């Protein structure tokens, strides 16, 4: 499940980059991750055009291959990182975790559930006062920011839906709590496909 070039919606950054010159496709038009990635990559593209113009005038300005590869690696990482989520709410500002890091924990938790494959995922800071739906105090980690998780999944045929999704919600909340310190208030699941 871990894929260094994948956005939270499941699409590769390289796919977004490959048709940056054209209009966004149907998915990209409605996907906040792809729209943000396109905006960032377009800014990068404009900067690259400026640099190419300078290099054409002075070939000594051209970077070596290793430098270019390392910068492109950083660009891919930067684009997919997503928003910075505060780790301790308002109590200790300045401590953050990237949305992509939390999405990685959600994917790992989902992949540990038999018959389930995780797909798109979004993690957001909880912004209203809605109470925890299952009220399970064991999953509350004192002091951490409350977050909501939206996750789409695919199921293998024959998987018991209620049991699998109950197990999945618990594992997502536990893993995100134990490994990030965030508190998961809600895990909204959408079954997108049968494998």
């Amino acid at each position, binding site marked *: 499940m871990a894929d260094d070039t994948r956005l939270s919606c499941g699409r590769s950054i390289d796919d977004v980059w490959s048709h940056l010159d054209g209009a966004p496709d149907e998915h990209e038009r409605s996907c906040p991750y792809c729209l943000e990635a396109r905006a960032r990559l377009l800014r990068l593209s404009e900067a690259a055009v400026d640099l190419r113009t300078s290099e054409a005038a002075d070939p000594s300005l051209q970077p070596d291959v290793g430098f270019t590869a*390392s910068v492109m690696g950083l660009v891919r990482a930067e684009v997919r990182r997503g928003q*910075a989520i505060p*780790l301790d709410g308002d109590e*200790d500002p*300045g*401590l953050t975790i990237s949305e*992509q890091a939390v999405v990685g924990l959600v994917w*790992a938790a989902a992949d540990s559930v038999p018959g389930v494959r995780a797909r798109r995922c979004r993690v957001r800071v909880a912004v209203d006062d809605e109470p925890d739906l299952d009220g399970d105090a064991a999953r509350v980690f004192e002091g951490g920011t409350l977050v909501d998780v939206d996750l789409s999944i695919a199921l293998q045929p024959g998987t018991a839906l209620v049991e699998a999704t109950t197990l999945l919600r618990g594992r997502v909340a536990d893993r995100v709590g134990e*490994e990030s*310190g965030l508190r998961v208030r809600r895990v909204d699941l959408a079954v997108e496909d049968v494998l």
Partner: protein
Amino acid sequence: MSATHAELRAATDDLRDRLAEATVAVDGVVRLEPTLRNALRRLQAGTTVLAGGQAARSAADGIELHRRVAVVDVVDVHVDLAVSPVRPASATARDVRAALTRVLRESGLEPGRLAVAVLSVER
């Protein structure tokens, strides 16, 4: 007597390296994580002295600091981390901030804004 630009540059380079060492020594930190912004800052090697010697900025992989010269210099630090899942990222981040504070105070400096960003959790 105030420090010369060269002295300020050397002292800030040394401080940046000690802050980086203290960060990676914290339980749960896998490494300092370079970012694009960080890489671009590093194109200008070492410390940059700003505002006629009234401030200095320095960056290395995963760490940036900004030092404002005063009676007691104030230092802002930003670190980007990859952490291990052996403990919550929030606990690791808090300990990193405490380590940064300790190094600054031991150096006779005032901690300013100390930002700790966890960019990835690696197993």
